[in-house]
């Protein structure tokens, strides 16, 4: 009885234990940060109670935030533990009914989420009592608790039905969510919790179908992608597959979006935040440009320099694969470098996020400067990556490249701003600069080819 729950809970606990053993400092810091965040959250509550501010956070807002967090978390949990899981094949292959196995997976997710809810809410209430705030609100707490339950039920339901071949099964969930949004009343979610539960029970009956459908789809997708390609396309496919599977692409996109937002925010409010009021008149207007420069610099280091260096630096042990094949050094360098197109695509979110703050009139300069900086990053990094294959000096290299790039980008920023303000046909000048850069990039790749040839002959 409950073998699957036992195993899943054990696996989760052991995972945490192993991670703590492997990197105790990291997890200690993580734990401290979590407790600290709850403390800050409690303090904010206290602060909002004693001081009148323009910020208006209602209990309803908090309820919906918590509901949404558990809704998303349980959807992801169920996807990882059942829909896409390989481990689940073992319990599914035994004589235990599939429905029971899936119900046990649901229960294990419910238990884990409730443990998280009780520990976090308990700690929050403890800190509130520490600030001498009344915490005895049993009805509200029950309301929140049932909200968490509903979030978990609907999260799992949406995970099952979203990946089902029959997507119309999502309709009841969508209708419920639409009602939640329309009524905008926590009590409504609480009262409809039995309905969410019934919907979950109905969905569990169809969960096996979703699991099989996703696995079949993955198999077909993988098979259709595995085929004979041209040399350059093969190299491109190999590199991008690894970027994709290591989740680097998501990481690039999130970093460029986050840096874009921060840059834009600092562009608008940076002066007030960092320059003392009495110096504001003197230095106003200087910092915003610096923030844009630093924003582009950070995005380029992360999305251009880091992957360009690693195209070859990481190949130490696998160099035999590409070197023993009848490939020209040109194909190798150009094929691998073509992967950076994907990295450039990942850097693009920086532009819209920054433009929201800077204004649409800056979009041309921003786009040009990002493209210029990206290409400059690749020009400097690829030959150095080839030169130092397997030298284990990537941090030093990254630092050196960053310093060189700082100069090149600084020059570009000043020059770009100057021609934009002085020359009417500045767009053509921008284009000309990019064409010249593309030619320099070609030379840089040729130099990399030469370095590779000398290194191995």
């Amino acid at each position, binding site marked *: 009885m409950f073998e699957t729950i036992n195993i899943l809970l054990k696996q989760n606990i052991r995972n945490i234990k192993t991670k703590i053993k492997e990197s105790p400092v990291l997890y200690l810091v993580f734990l401290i940060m979590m407790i600290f965040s709850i403390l800050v959250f409690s303090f904010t509550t206290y602060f909002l109670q004693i001081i009148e501010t323009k910020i208006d956070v209602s209990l309803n807002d908090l309820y919906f935030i918590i509901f949404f967090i558990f809704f998303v978390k349980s959807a992801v949990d169920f996807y990882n533990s059942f829909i896409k899981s390989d481990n689940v094949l073992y319990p599914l292959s035994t004589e235990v009914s599939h429905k029971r196995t899936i119900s046990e997976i649901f229960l294990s997710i419910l238990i884990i989420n409730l443990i998280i809810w009780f520990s976090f809410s308990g700690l929050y209430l403890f800190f509130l009592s520490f600030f001498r705030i009344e915490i005895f609100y049993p009805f509200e707490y029950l309301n929140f608790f049932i909200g968490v339950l509903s979030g978990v039920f609907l999260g799992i339901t949406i995970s099952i039905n979203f990946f089902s071949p029959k997507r119309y099964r999502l309709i009841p969930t969508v209708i419920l969510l639409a009602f939640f949004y329309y009524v905008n009343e926590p009590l409504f979610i609480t009262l409809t919790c039995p309905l969410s539960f019934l919907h979950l029970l109905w969905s569990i009956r169809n969960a096996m179908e979703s699991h099989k459908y996703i696995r079949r789809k993955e*198999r077909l997708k*993988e098979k259709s992608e*595995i*085929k*004979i*390609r*041209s*040399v350059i*396309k*093969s*190299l491109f*496919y*190999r590199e991008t*597959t*690894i970027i994709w*599977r*290591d989740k680097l692409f998501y990481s690039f996109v999130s970093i460029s979006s986050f840096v874009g937002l921060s840059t834009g925010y600092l562009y608008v409010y940076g002066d007030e935040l960092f320059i003392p009021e009495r110096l504001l008149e003197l230095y106003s207007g200087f910092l915003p440009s610096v923030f844009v420069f630093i924003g582009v610099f950070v995005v380029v280091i992360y999305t251009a320099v880091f992957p360009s260096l690693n195209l070859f630096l990481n190949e130490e*042990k*696998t*160099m*035999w*694969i*590409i*070197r*023993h*094949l*009848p*490939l*020209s050094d040109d194909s190798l360098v150009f094929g691998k470098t073509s992967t950076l197109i994907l990295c450039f695509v990942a850097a693009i979110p920086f532009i819209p996020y920054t433009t929201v703050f800077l204004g649409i009139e800056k979009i041309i300069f921003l786009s040009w400067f990002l493209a210029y900086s990206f290409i400059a990053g690749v020009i400097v990094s690829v030959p150095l990556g080839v030169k130092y294959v397997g030298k284990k000096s990537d941090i030093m290299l990254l630092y050196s490249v960053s310093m060189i790039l700082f100069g090149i980008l600084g020059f570009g920023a000043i020059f770009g701003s100057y021609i934009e303000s002085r020359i009417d046909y500045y767009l053509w000048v921008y284009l000309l600069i990019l064409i010249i850069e593309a030619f320099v990039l070609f030379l840089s790749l040729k130099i990399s080819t030469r370095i590779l040839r000398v*290194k*191995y*002959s």
Partner: protein
Amino acid sequence: MIEINNVTKYYGKIHALRDVSLKFNDSQVISIMGENGAGKSTLLKICVGILPFDSGEVIVDGYSIKKNSIKARERIGYLPEMPEMYDRLTGREFLFYIASLRKIKNAEDKIDEITKNIGINNFLDYEIGTYSKGMKQKISITTAIMHEPSNLLLDEPVYGLDPLTSRRIQDFIKRNNGSTVIATHSTQLVEQVSDFVYIIMRGKVVLYDKVENLLKKHGSIEDAYFHTKDEINV
């Protein structure tokens, strides 16, 4: 056919190969033996073109590995001693990647045939990072032979393999029409598949003979090896 003429290789101050000259003819299986660090793997890597050397010349089917390296590498199949591969690719993706780079025709059929024969076909859709040493070896063997090279360079080919696969690899080596060069410590493998044996010590070839002759003279390759080693030490 591979000709190695006066090849010298240094690793810093260490003299890894000293003026080595060898010839591997077609339809012959040649084994290279020697203690750890003698220069066997270095010699194979030089023949494949993945390791630069200081002086000398390597010719593969008439093409210099330095001057015509692409033509030379087209004619070589290579199995490294410790096959490191891309862990995040599946076995199938990796084999198709190599087949694409080698521009092999009918790659799918060839991959199917070889992987079935050596018993790895059921694991091709798993990521290589999850493979055991033997499974990686099987994938690596497939990459070495799928383009039907005229020269096969195998570094410890049966190390880590199960007995059945090991037997199949040995049968394949015996059937191969081109030259097959094996760097190995296994005297049993040498006796079973090789026509000739080279013994290298401290970067120099100290013995070259037919396996048949050595067996007649010493009774076993192991005895021949120790006898040669003793002679050198004296």
